[in-house]
């Protein structure tokens, strides 16, 4: 066995375990500078302004794996005005607009890396009690009734978009939320956003149970009708 072959063999052996641990490695090298993958000790108001991206330490209780795999390969903006929106808006002679010069594109991964990272993220379960398991009862919602609550009666459309190109921009688009998010996460977040993301700029509206079920169902169904 010549020296070169031995070196190649050695390199292959070393690369072996690194490949197997790919998801965790990528998470460490590419994600943590903007996202918390462990519960932060500091959940202060100031931290909300300092962090560069949403927390991911409960990603496994938040996202659908298939969506993560797809999105990480082709990351498109979910929050029209970024996070946190106030840092990315500027005045104009009409409404405030997004200051595109402040927005940075999200890291884009290969298919293999996206799958490895998605698998790793799905291991990050939310702390006990953050997401109410089984809270969403899965009943079908009338879309016209859902839209009435979403747009008029509860005012969700002020900040969120239920259809591409319309609605508010300070919150994430919701026509893709059903594909993106787990139903119990949607329910729990609507019920008390600050319980999941302290100090976040979505109000806690003291919604009654039927409202929580209806809005969660509507958002899930939106994804099928308006989402891609």
């Amino acid at each position, binding site marked *: 066995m010549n020296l070169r072959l031995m070196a190649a063999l050695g390199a292959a052996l070393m690369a072996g375990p690194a490949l197997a641990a790919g998801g965790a490695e990528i998470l460490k090298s590419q994600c943590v500078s903007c996202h918390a993958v462990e519960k932060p000790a500091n959940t202060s108001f100031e931290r909300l302004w300092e962090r560069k991206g949403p927390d991911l330490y409960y990603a496994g209780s938040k996202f659908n794996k298939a969506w993560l795999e797809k999105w990480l390969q082709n990351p498109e903006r979910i929050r029209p005005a970024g996070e946190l929106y106030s840092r990315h808006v500027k*005045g104009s002679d*009409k409404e405030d607009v997004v200051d595109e010069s402040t927005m940075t594109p999200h890291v884009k991964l290969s298919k293999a890396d996206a799958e490895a990272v998605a698998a790793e993220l799905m291991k990050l379960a939310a702390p006990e009690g953050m997401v109410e398991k089984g809270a969403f009862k899965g009943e079908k919602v009338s879309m016209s009734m859902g839209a009435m609550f979403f747009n008029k009666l509860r005012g969700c459309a002020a900040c969120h978009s239920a259809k591409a190109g319309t609605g508010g921009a300070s919150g994430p688009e919701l026509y893709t939320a059903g594909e993106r998010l787990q139903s119990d996460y949607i329910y729990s977040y609507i019920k008390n956003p600050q319980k999941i993301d302290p100090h976040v700029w979505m109000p806690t509206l003291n919604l009654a149970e039927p409202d929580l079920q209806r809005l969660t169902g509507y958002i899930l169904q939106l994804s099928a009708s308006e989402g891609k």
Partner: protein
Amino acid sequence: MKTNFGQRLPLLLKSALLLGSSLMLAGQAGAAEAYTERALRNYDTYCVQCHGINRNGRGINSRDMSVQPRDHSDAKGMGDIPNEEIFRVIKEGGLAVNKSVLMPAWGNVMNDEEIRELVAYLRFVCKCGSTN
């Protein structure tokens, strides 16, 4: 209003300057303590999304809203609303004062003290004095 006098000034001169500046501050107490830093930060976090970075009611969300957010820089419009009503609309939302549901209740996000500070900040923004 913090002034850094530096480290190397003689003590006597330093106290003289401090005395002078505190007298100055006392003279303009209203202006210097018009609002708290926390109120400004809360406004920038929760209010700007609809009421705008320029406090003029043209926030990033306002384009498609069926009822336009209040222009906080409008001295006349804001001057007509008593402090108590502003407090209530922030804490309990628009519906509590027969206004739009699009103004949500912030009482679960900010405590009463923070909301009172925000009312004072709004008075500063509208330059419309304080109405009881």
